[in-house]
């Protein structure tokens, strides 16, 4: 099935337009990498608060923002500055993005520019009706606690603002490299992963496949599931490629060795193969993925490309639903709304926390700016935060449960050792004391 055949279909409706914004230093590097690789077809845009860093970008469309605040010298790692700079120029940003259906925001969280500006940008883009997909990196652990914390805060904001956030912690990349890998190569790996993310999703959407995956499928998977999305891609060729590709995919550190899949509740799988792709290959790959992602709604697509003879490539987007989105999901209109809005028109985002969404309200999507929060929104954010924390705690091993140093009962020789906890009882404390048996 060649590209020429499918074109008329596309022309009849409208061609999907996408844009990639490289935000901040890491974003610009990633965009440079994408341009050097095979992604030239997409329009790129580089944005930064630092004029000198911006000059490094190999993109003709460059936007320097926050000029008044920082005189083109960068934020110095302060997200508030980044946020302020972006908020001031929201209108300008909207102009830049207008007419785009799918916006990729690429950047590195932790610094000032991306952490502060990405959520603002995402929000602005959503107001213009685009589907916003952010691909962001998180800092290495050695970059310090403060940067990590900033990155986490930024990620949280971004998840609320963007439709999908695919997050690539640098620390996970460490697992992919060996001791001798140079710093340059390490960053090249992250850039390549970001590029793969953009490329994979773009190809998934534009290539007309046997079993088509389209924009609305992507919306189904990502919308309302901002909490956790992840992305992985793998390729294999030759004998036993189906098995090899699943093994590679499941071994990907981005999926946390399959953990993310197991927890995902929507998975989008896109297969690419040559004309020799067999049914059993597809079956084998899908069976493994289905097995790993038991709970998930799995949407699959397959495309046949003549140049991919002997090759099988899998691109996978998995998303876990956040608690808030569960409430949204019941809304049966939502999917249609989303597809429609993302495709062509601007529609209303329905949020159960606001008073009933009246049909008369003309505003396209009400997205409150961060400073003036409504009461409900505040409560909801608060609840989200609490949920986030409680999930965190579940990951901590059982025996880490803290104990106040109030006990009068000595544990004798087990004082220093790791407590043996069983359903909240400390088994190191003598049984007769826990049972309250009197010895007299």
């Amino acid at each position, binding site marked *: 099935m060649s590209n020429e055949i499918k074109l008329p279909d596309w022309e009849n409706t409208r061609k999907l337009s996408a844009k990639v914004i490289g935000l901040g230093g890491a974003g610009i590097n990633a965009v440079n990498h994408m341009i050097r690789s095979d992604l030239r077809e997409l329009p790129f845009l580089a944005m930064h608060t630092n004029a000198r860093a911006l000059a490094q970008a190999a993109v003709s469309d460059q936007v320097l923002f926050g000029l008044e605040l920082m005189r083109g010298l960068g934020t110095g790692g302060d997200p508030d500055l980044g946020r302020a700079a972006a908020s001031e120029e929201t209108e300008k940003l909207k102009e830049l993005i207008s007419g785009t259906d799918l916006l990729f925001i690429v950047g590195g969280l932790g610094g000032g520019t991306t952490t502060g500006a990405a959520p603002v940008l995402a929000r602005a883009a959503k107001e213009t009706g685009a589907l916003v997909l952010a691909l962001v990196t998180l800092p290495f652990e050695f970059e310090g606690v403060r940067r990590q914390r900033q990155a986490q805060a930024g990620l949280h904001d971004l998840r609320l603002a963007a439709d999908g956030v695919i997050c690539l912690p640098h620390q996970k990349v460490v*697992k992919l490299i060996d001791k001798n890998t140079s710093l340059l190569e390490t960053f090249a790996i992250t850039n390549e992963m970001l590029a793969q993310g953009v490329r994979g999703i773009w190809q998934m959407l534009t290539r007309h496949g046997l079993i088509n995956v389209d924009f609305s499928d992507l919306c189904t998977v990502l919308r309302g599931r901002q909490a956790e999305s992840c992305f992985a891609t793998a390729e294999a060729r030759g004998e036993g490629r189906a098995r090899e590709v699943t093994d590679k995919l*499941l071994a990907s550190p981005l999926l946390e*060795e*399959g*953990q993310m899949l*197991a927890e995902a509740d929507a998975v989008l799988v896109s297969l690419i193969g040559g004309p020799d792709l067999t049914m*059993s290959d597809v*079956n084998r790959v899908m*069976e493994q993925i289905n097995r790993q992602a038991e709970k998930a709604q799995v949407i699959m697509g397959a495309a046949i490309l003549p140049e991919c003879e002997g090759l099988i490539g899998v691109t996978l987007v998995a998303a876990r639903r956040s608690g808030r989105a569960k409430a949204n999901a019941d809304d049966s209109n939502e999917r249609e709304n989303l597809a429609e809005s993302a495709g062509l028109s601007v529609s209303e985002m329905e949020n159960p926390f606001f008073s009933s969404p009246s049909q008369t309200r003309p505003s396209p999507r009400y997205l409150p700016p961060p400073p003036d929060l409504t009461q409900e929104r505040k409560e909801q954010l608060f609840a989200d935060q609490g949920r986030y924390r409680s999930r965190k705690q579940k990951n901590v091993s059982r*025996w880490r449960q803290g104990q106040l140093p109030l006990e009068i*009962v*000595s*544990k*004798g*020789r*087990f004082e220093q*050792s*790791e407590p*043996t906890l*069983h359903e909240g009882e400390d*088994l*190191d404390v*003598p*049984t*007769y*004391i826990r*049972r309250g*048996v009197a*010895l007299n």
Partner: protein
Amino acid sequence: MFKSPSILVGLEVGTSKVCVVVSEISDMGALNIIGVGQAKSRGVRKGEIVDATVASEDIRNAIVEAEQMANVEIRSVFLAVTGAHMRGFNNRGFHPVASHDREISDDDVQDVIKNAKAINLPAENHVVHVIRQHFLVDGQAGIVNPVGMFGARVEVDVHVLHGNYNRLQNPIRAVKGLQVEVEGVVFSGLASALSLLSSHQKELGALVIDIGGGTTEYVVYSGGIIKYTGVLAVGGDHVSNDLAYGVKVPLGRAEQLKIEHGSAVVDSSIRGQTIQMASGLGLPEQAINLEHLRRIVSLRLEEIFALIASELEAAGLLDYLRCGVYLCGGVSRTRDIVKLAERVFGTPASIGNSSSISGVKSALDQPEFASPIGVVKFGSFESKKRSDERKTLGHGFKQTLGYIFRRS
């Protein structure tokens, strides 16, 4: 087939003592124990090393003793590992049979096992054993070997035992520090079960509880396969500690009291009796109420059994223990512990003995030696399997950990 008269050594670095069992393996594969060595363990708490220097000293002493008794030089050992970090669970893998005639080939079996081994574990965890249970062909359960059968889909159940990699490494490091090779590691509860149970007992269903100084391991066999394994980081140390606190004596003395007067069941006839503790070593003369002492011991032991029983009940295995409960480990010497186990589990119970192996009688009769003897037995299975590879391959830790061994 075997190189020189083969010597197999089992080592257990326990909480209360380090045990070494040296065994000869005949050409027929029969084991004969020719030496044992033991040393008091000081650097271990709850089955895990907390003081590496002292622990390796103790290991050295035990090995030297065993070397003298058996008159051999020990170069490599099989090591028993345990600890609260170890967990066991059952996993199932499946695989569609691809061939045209639907005959299940060796490759299919390898594939299905590979699938069953694909487990999501945290990165720091390491799989110690993957033990094959039964195969299912098209949903038909209980198939021992499916090669040559016909079917569209093979499944296999495996029992996976895993633990924290670093904590597993600690005893291995201590042994290697003494220039002694570690040929393989085995979960000590599994080793105890290997040494105590005959295939008949495994078939009928049995529970082996190894109550050591710091940890209690338990293993359930039923239908010839491992159904359940677990570790509880509670053992004889806890009994002593409870006593030390309860009757207000120093720990050493509590240990002694436990051995001399402890009992798992409180008899009404001892009401009001006291034990006179002679003064000595600067300790005052003391009268201890025997009933209190036994109550403290009994409550602790009963709790251990009750925890195991409730866990097995949750796993639905309590009704499968048709052969009963077998106890081993130092605490199984406690008076009337069999009675207590019978009461809690509602099945016959007994102190296990390693009857399937010949050799030094004193070692075979002691319940403490069940686990190191089992390690030797495990080692004999392993070396049988590896005797061919041995000529060509080195033995890294990676190879020794995470293998499959056959149903045993």
